[in-house]
């Protein structure tokens, strides 16, 4: 079932939630992001693909300002991203982030990982935060692991906990930075299933991934990047069957042959 068919998400509906306008970013000599224009609407699932080094992870990380930008503006829900301090922390609480390397807090249990944000950032009571955390952990299928430490879990389980940790903040948008790239093949599916589920429930998502299957199944729109620029944007169906640019044809030719 695709996101469109499920009826809970529809491309083109909803007002703009994340807007990147004229974003430029350099790493020394490297022009990492070139004049990026991207609008993500509420409830939309945007998948960003492209060869490694194309700037797709950097793009994802600028949206919650884990990377600063040199020029341009990024707005979330109509508001400019704050520069730093408490306002920036407050913004990040609104943006969920899932990393390639999970980054669960190694010294805290699974349950504590999920409750830390709600308790410390949202000021939620411990009992309430734990109740909610257990619901979320059940939802991603690791409820029975709540008392364990991250290192005791498999990669796929850790990544699902990381998703639950981000969801516990009730974010407006979820960013996924290559969430399955560090996983063994048999664990990729369990993480993607959770993500597809999220997409179907109407979560706004920006997903950097190499999982073309996920892009086809869950994406409303595919953004193809190369050399720091957005080369092509289209629906998954159009993009995968009729890529317009040579770079995209070349890229798809390389990854889809096997």
């Amino acid at each position, binding site marked *: 079932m695709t996101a469109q068919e499920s009826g809970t998400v529809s491309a083109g509906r909803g007002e703009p939630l994340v807007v990147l306008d004229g974003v430029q970013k350099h790493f020394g000599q490297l022009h990492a992001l070139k004049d990026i224009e991207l609008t993500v609407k509420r409830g939309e699932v945007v998948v960003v693909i492209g060869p490694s080094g194309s700037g797709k992870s950097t793009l994802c990380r600028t949206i*919650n300002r*884990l990377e600063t930008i040199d020029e341009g503006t990024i707005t979330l829900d109509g508001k400019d991203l704050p520069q*730093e*301090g*408490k306002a920036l*922390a*407050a*913004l*990040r*609480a*609104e*943006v*969920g*982030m899932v*990393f390639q*390397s999970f*980054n*669960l*807090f*190694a*010294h805290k249990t699974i349950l504590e990982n999920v409750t*830390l*944000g709600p308790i*410390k*950032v949202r000021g939620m009571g411990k009992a309430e935060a734990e109740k909610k955390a257990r619901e979320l952990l059940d939802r991603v299928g690791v409820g029975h692991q709540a008392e364990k*430490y991250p*290192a*005791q879990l498999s990669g796929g389980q850790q990544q699902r906990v*990381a998703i639950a*940790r*981000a969801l516990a*903040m009730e974010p407006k948008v979820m960013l996924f930075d290559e969430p399955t790239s560090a996983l063994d093949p048999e664990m990729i599916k369990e993480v993607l299933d959770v993500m597809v589920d999220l997409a179907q429930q109407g979560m706004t998502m920006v997903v950097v991934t190499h999982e073309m299957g996920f892009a086809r199944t869950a994406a409303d729109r595919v953004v193809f990047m190369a050399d720091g620029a957005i080369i092509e944007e289209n629906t998954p169906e159009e993009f995968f069957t009729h890529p317009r640019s040579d770079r995209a044809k070349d890229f798809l030719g390389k990854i889809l042959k096997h």
Partner: protein
Amino acid sequence: MDAVISNFDEYLKAFGLTIGLFVVSGIASLVLGTILAVLRVGPVSILNKAAALYVTLFRNTPLLMIFVFIFIAMPVLGYNFKVVENIEIAGYNVSAFFFRACLALTLYTSAFVCEAMRSGVNAVPLGQAEAGRAIGLTFAQSMTLVILPQAARAVIPPMTSVMIALAKNTSVAAAFGLAEATATMRAFTNNNADQRIGIFLAFAIGYIIVVEVISLSSYLVERKVRVAR
């Protein structure tokens, strides 16, 4: 050895003072050193530089010179710290000598604590800080809730070395009118020149016991807080 055994209460008192100097300046340098380390890795450039300057200044100065400065130069400048003698803790008055010695030891040791702590902070993967920021923790929260608890685990072996050095560095206070272990040993050998070797041994054993207690406790703490990755 007879001199030590017949004056065992003095021997214990001397090591009591050594331990007192160690505990007070140890706690103070752990606190100050940790604050300095946070400033050094923090986002405010001027504070980074101030903390780096502090470390450069106090880590590169011989401890004896810091003692000389605090015991001899500062009273000339009008700071003799006599006011601390009005403070009474559990029936004991804090002597200005004790306070000055702790001040000197703390200023010196906190520079080393800062660097040990910073190595621990650097040992925590960057992703931990990013994950903390990503759920909306402020810098201070991500430091105290995520980074420092993990850094503390990585930092126990080097921090133990710093603390052992501090325990032995308290002997510098012997030259500044504090009857701690080294000063008392000198007094003993002066009065009982025929028993020097025995006295040396007795005091060496005392220091070994103090240091072994420190390293044993650090081993126990390390085992308790080990974290899996």
